[in-house]
């Protein structure tokens, strides 16, 4: 019973409680709101150490093998390392191969520190993909002292399915291949989108007096490469198109480089790019077909939950999953509306402030869509996040 102004009335208590509870319930959990992809993710398990046999550290790219070929099984996880054993950035030369079925981790590739036609040496980055034809293409943004002071232009290196380098792609439009590669793979042809973040980047000691950070150079690009893949032969570049340009890039004394890092292709052909230095996500419309560049593209979202966005991938619901650089969160973004739905702590290591600061990089949604792989570079570990069973 509820007494109202001295009048005793019989009021059903249970519905009242429900109404009050509904009012108090967080809006994002109310029934009229769509559940996000990340809210279904409750399990986080370490899968393997990413430290290579030679001691290389700092895992960056994550690629899920699309086919079984050579030493790789379909579904294997390839992870490359950006640092050597001494933790010098831009000097990692290895790619490990984790088989989720056998739980075994093997060395897929160990490149020499110096390759002919790979200017500046080898330092493997987040730019990596594996084609259905078995070729692995990986970016190199090398340094000799662990900073951009000795930055070499780098290259895209083509490896066969046994991890042997067979070709090196360079050119005036390739300088610091950096972000995760977005790929359209039709078997005999393929289109790659690679961000370049090395053009005229000085050492981290060259600072902008206004911000105190290393100077920002607005010369980063996104390069589209259209490939044909002859049977049994390495891919051939048929055309090269800069689809985005004038993006921000700068040296960073901790992160080496800050620039466009995450690339993900939407179903409508829009390429989404994480513009880390500007703390925003941009969109390049018709990225696979456009003949001209889109400049700095259209801003989809900026700030909010984003904290210097890194690699990203597309969840089964079409939302972008974006790793943050300066905390251990992955952010879910609806690219159609530009709305940031939520974020989840996937690295809560309180040894950093905020937790997970500087730990995340690559991300790849699992083939069944129930979760995603990511790396923790403080622990040099490949992690898997997935929905509850």
């Amino acid at each position, binding site marked *: 019973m509820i007494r109202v102004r001295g009048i005793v009335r019989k009021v059903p208590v249970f519905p009242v409680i429900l109404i009050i509870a509904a009012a108090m319930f*967080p*809006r*994002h959990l109310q029934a009229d709101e769509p559940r996000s992809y990340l809210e279904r*993710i*409750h*399990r*986080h*398990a370490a899968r*393997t*150490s990413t*430290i*290579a*046999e*030679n*001691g290389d550290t700092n895992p960056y790219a994550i690629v899920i093998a699309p086919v079984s070929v050579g030493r790789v099984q379909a579904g294997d996880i390839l992870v490359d390392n950006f640092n050597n*054993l*001494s*933790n*010098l*950035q831009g*000097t990692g030369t290895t790619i490990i191969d984790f088989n989720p079925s056998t*739980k*075994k*981790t093997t060395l897929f590739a160990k490149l020499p*520190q110096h390759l002919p036609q790979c200017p500046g*040496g080898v330092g493997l980055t987040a730019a990596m993909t594996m084609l259905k034809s078995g070729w692995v293409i990986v970016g190199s943004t090398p340094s*000799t*002292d*662990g*900073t951009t*002071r*000795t930055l070499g232009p780098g290259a895209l290196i083509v490896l066969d399915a046994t991890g042997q380098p067979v070709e090196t792609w360079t050119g005036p439009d390739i300088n610091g291949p950096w972000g995760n590669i977005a790929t359209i793979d039709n078997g005999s042809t393929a289109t790659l989108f690679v961000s370049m973040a090395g053009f005229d980047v000085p050492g981290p*000691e060259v*600072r902008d007096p206004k911000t*105190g950070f290393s100077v920002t150079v607005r010369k980063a690009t996104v390069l589209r490469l259209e490939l044909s893949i002859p049977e049994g032969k390495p891919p051939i570049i048929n055309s090269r198109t800069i689809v985005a340009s004038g993006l921000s890039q700068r040296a960073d*004394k*901790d992160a080496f480089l800050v620039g466009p890092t995450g690339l993900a292709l939407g179903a409508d052909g829009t390429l989404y790019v994480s513009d880390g230095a500007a703390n925003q996500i941009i969109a390049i419309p018709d990225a696979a077909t456009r003949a001209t560049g889109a400049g700095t593209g259209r801003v989809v979202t900026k700030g909010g939950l984003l*904290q210097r966005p890194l690699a990203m991938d597309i969840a089964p619901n079409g939302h972008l999953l974006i790793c943050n650089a300066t*905390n*251990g*969160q992955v952010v879910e973004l609806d690219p159609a509306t530009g*709305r*940031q*739905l*939520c*974020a*989840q*702590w*996937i*690295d*809560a290591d*309180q*040894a950093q*402030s*905020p*937790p997970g*600061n*500087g*730990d995340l990089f690559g991300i790849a949604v699992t083939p069944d869509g129930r979760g995603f792989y990511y790396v923790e570079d*403080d622990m040099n570990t490949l992690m898997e996040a997935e929905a509850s069973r």
Partner: protein
Amino acid sequence: MNTRSLFFNRPGRGSRPANLSHVPLAVLVVGLLSIAAALATPPTPVAPEEPPSTQPESSGETGGFLAGISRSGYLLGDMWGLRPLLSKGGVSLNISETSEVLGNITGGVRRGFDYDGLTQMNLQVDTQRAFNVHGGTFNISGLQIHGRDLSTDNLGTLQTASGIEADRSTRLWELWYQQKFLDEDRLDVKIGQQSLDQEFMDSQGAALFVNTMFGWPMVPSADLPGGGPAYPLSALGVRARLRPTDSLTFLAGVFNGSPVANNTGDPQQQNPSGTSFPLSGGVLVIAEMQYAYPALGTMVYADESPALSGVYRLGAWYDSESFADQRFDDTGLPLADPAGTGIAATHGGDYGIYGVADQMIWHSEDDPDHALSVFARVMGTPQDDRNLIDFSLNLGFTLHDPIPQRDDDTLGIGMGVAKVSGQASDADRDVGFFTGSLFPVRGTETFVEVTYQYQFTPWCQLQPDFQYVFNPGGGILNPASPGNRVKNEAVIGMRVNIFF
């Protein structure tokens, strides 16, 4: 942390506390001076994950171990191929040196500076890589302790000035195997020779500081046999860690009740090489509950202001060994009474409880590295008849990235309090009564510390340090100045950490 004394036996199983009526006062005073020369957790020899800022230099040549030395995590890089060779078998090797010069410029028993140092070597085997066995880690570590101990030489403090002060020795420290179990590795069990200061009562913020009590705290240092299984000692035991939810972790262990077989005398001398592995006597049981925010899987929404990160710990320990009474002998007379036996009464078992909080309270939106955190650790035991210290407190603030472009530096200010138990204070009164002389009654010792950790390179940290101690030793007599207590002390110094 260990309590040790050159002249005084710490209470414990089999110990025979000095009969105060049978020793000259001067010896007693010196003994009190040297009581509880405490030790604590040394700096963890882990090279930073990401290289920090360095000044421009001409390095950049390829080849040779000097290549990229200003950015390398280790002074010796790959150790001429040794580290990659070990890495192939899942073996990691860390060697570090902590060296420091500390001295008191005011107060103390005498003034002056001492050098002391610690070389740590740690070898771990990842069984996944070595044997394809998931979740196993084998660990062995050793210590080489050198130099002199300022706190014993000059200070006479309860809360000793440096966490690495210990007897000069080369000793085994830890030797254990850890195995993960359950889905998501929610359980792990560690078995073997363990140093509890590596996991229990831990405060991340406190780890920055030089004073011993920011490592292994004062209560277990002074009250547990041998100071408890903590640097440079350890004890055989089993520890389990369970993570039932992402936010909650339970840590519990059972260990030998003392790190040494014979609690008489300096425990480090009882086990000089760390290889006696005693399993006799009582047991030490310790349990701790930890709550952390954020945890893996914690959600954050765009329309919310998430709380800042923090870790909270609540724990308790119980040791079943025998503990000597602080005041009375085995006939019920005061230990200071000439008519007494001089043999302390004993009590079975001892326990304490503690709480630890680490909380970030602010960070810059523009530069998340620039963050201010607070930590606090309180610890107590109600059984003051058998404990020298019945309460201790650590409190402090740390400011990370305190100066622009110094992302990996940390400034800290902290304090420690150690309260001598009522029973021990009454024992001091007894001495005064039975000797008919003025004898200081020990109370509370407090210190403050200001320190700045400067990262010169990822493999080299420099740490200037200042400490000021109020009421050293709780208010003990100064043997160098009869009739006077040891005056308050200002301690300055410099610590250097090098990762090889």
